[in-house]
């Protein structure tokens, strides 16, 4: 098991290297650079050139890439061009809201999607099944920001139950923290619910055909026990896989949600950085996201051993 973990961690290196090279090259060929934005309207082209030189943006590709890789290996993500703060510090400031949003969304989605997927599989091909699946697909189809705006209008402006925007850190209390996250999590979670419900139903369908389920039923086991304890555990592997792969979509969706609900998270930071051409920040965040994605998928793979003892590394 340990060798498996180590092998997997080593295997992430080339992936991260690919990501790093890709992102860096992308930014290198990008037209438009921060020097012009920084210099402002009153600057002359000579001013812009001076700023560009002072930021080191006029040096060749390999030099800049090499320098960045060297920094990474020393756990230094560089300094933002615009704010002059270390990228790592900027990310650390804003990681809590994003992680909170993702965690709450995950909990919400899984706790809704898995049960309805199970029920849909149990009552396969019935009206209930089709209704549930149609409902799930609907969650897939309406854009995140539309759901967000509608929720904000109804629950914040009209009913005044929840705040429209913002983020309260966990340190200020559980309920205030949750209050700010409920609507964003629901808006973001709709897609996830659809994905997970679908895969749960499909995996459960397959499991429910198995002989041992028929045996359990014949033995007189209660329906709930069969469904949730025997069948679900066996169906868990593909469900966990989808949850892992879906993290990438969750991160992407968080970008929009953070804009609509003014949550000061990493998603918004990334979009702002991209539009401003703040290269160090963009590079640092994309690298971090990939790492997060790879790490979570590693966790999912390790989770398989818990869910299915037949899988062993």
């Amino acid at each position, binding site marked *: 098991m340990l060798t498996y973990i180590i092998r997997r961690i080593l295997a992430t290196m080339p992936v991260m290297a690919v990501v790093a090279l890709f992102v860096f090259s992308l930014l290198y060929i990008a037209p438009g650079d921060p020097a012009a934005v920084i210099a402002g309207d009153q600057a002359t082209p000579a001013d812009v050139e001076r700023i560009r030189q002072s930021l080191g943006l006029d040096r060749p590709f390999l030099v800049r890439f090499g320098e960045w890789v060297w920094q990474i290996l020393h756990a230094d993500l560089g300094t933002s061009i615009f704010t002059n703060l270390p990228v790592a510090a900027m990310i650390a400031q804003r990681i809590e809201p994003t992680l909170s949003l993702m965690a709450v969304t995950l909990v919400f989605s899984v706790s809704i999607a898995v049960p309805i997927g199970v029920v849909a599989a149990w009552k396969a091909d019935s009206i209930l099944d089709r209704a549930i699946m149609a409902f799930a697909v609907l969650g897939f189809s309406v854009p995140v920001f*539309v759901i967000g705006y509608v929720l904000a209008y109804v629950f914040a*402006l009209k009913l005044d139950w929840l705040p429209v925007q913002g983020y309260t850190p966990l340190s200020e209390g559980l309920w205030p923290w949750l209050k700010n996250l409920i609507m964003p999590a629901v808006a973001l979670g709709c897609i996830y619910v659809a994905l997970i419900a679908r895969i749960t139903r499909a995996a459960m369908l397959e499991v429910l055909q198995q002989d041992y389920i028929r045996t359990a039923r014949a033995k007189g086991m209660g329906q709930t026990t069969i469904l949730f304890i025997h069948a679900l555990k066996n169906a868990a592997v593909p469900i966990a896989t989808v949850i892992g792969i879906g993290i990438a979509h969750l991160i992407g969706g968080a970008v929009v949600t953070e804009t609509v609900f003014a949550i000061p998270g990493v998603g918004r930071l990334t979009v702002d950085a991209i539009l401003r051409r703040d290269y160090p920040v963009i590079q640092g965040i994309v690298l971090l*996201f990939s790492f997060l994605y790879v790490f979570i998928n590693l966790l999912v793979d390790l989770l398989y051993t818990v869910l299915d003892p037949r899988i062993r590394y």
Partner: protein
Amino acid sequence: MTATSHPRASDVTVDPSAPPGIAVASDLPDILPAVKPRGGLAGFIWRYPAIAIGSALLLAMLLIAVFAPWIGTVDPTALAPARRTREPSAAFWFGTDMLGRDIYSRVLYGTRVSLTVGFAVATLASLAGLAIGLVSGFIRWADGFIMRVMDGLMSIPPILLAIALMALTRGSVGNVITAITIAEIPRVSRLVRSVVLSLREQPYVDAAVAAGTRTPMIILRHILPNTVAPMTVQATYVCASAMVIEAILSFIGAGTPPTIPSWGNIMAEGRALWQVKPYIVFFPAIFLSVTVLAVNLLGDGLRDALDPRMVKRL
């Protein structure tokens, strides 16, 4: 014999010409009620509702896209700031936007853009993913490398990748298609690769290789037919995803240029006003949701109909 009535012994008639003691098959009544499969279109809809509804809606959208100039009322790009932000009325069925353009016509024309983006991305991503997946599945030394690259691409959130690519180039439909395609290729290539890997071990493929069949023939004869079904289903999901990503790109401000009406554009322009003039966001949102729903339903239906075992891979 009606399906609902129960057979009775008195219903049995015996053919006198038959040898005694033997009942000819035609004499025997059907003990079980006949399940008459409903024929024709009604039957198809009953058996595959998802495919039916999905394709019907999609067909409607396609017709709208093709006939937009005729069903539309005015030129969708005609500006008239004097009559901006008017509510829906008899003259402007969906109202006007911030520059006085007719939203109804813009939404109709927007169908073209969204469908184009969706289909183009689905096709291109499928073709590219097919090529990469085949190469990866067959050429072992390339497999590791290619899959690492694909993993790397997949680990970057698709929206961020698309925004970054759009920020590199100017806004145009072509660039939007390219950006989203690049983000979607990894999924398709993984799928094709897994099909190839599992098929490579099949006895009949082994036999073909042993018989000296060249690789292109093997691909054509054995692999491709097996990839068609899962790839078609995957293509529909890619199409739906592409349409939503295009809307989100426009929402962020990195999507199709404003000279071309697209649902994402219309929503992005109207988003600041959604509390006072909700119709600007509302109508394109409905069209987008219906179209994406249609494509998703189609995908689900196809998947269920073609091969339930595909589900685990998708």
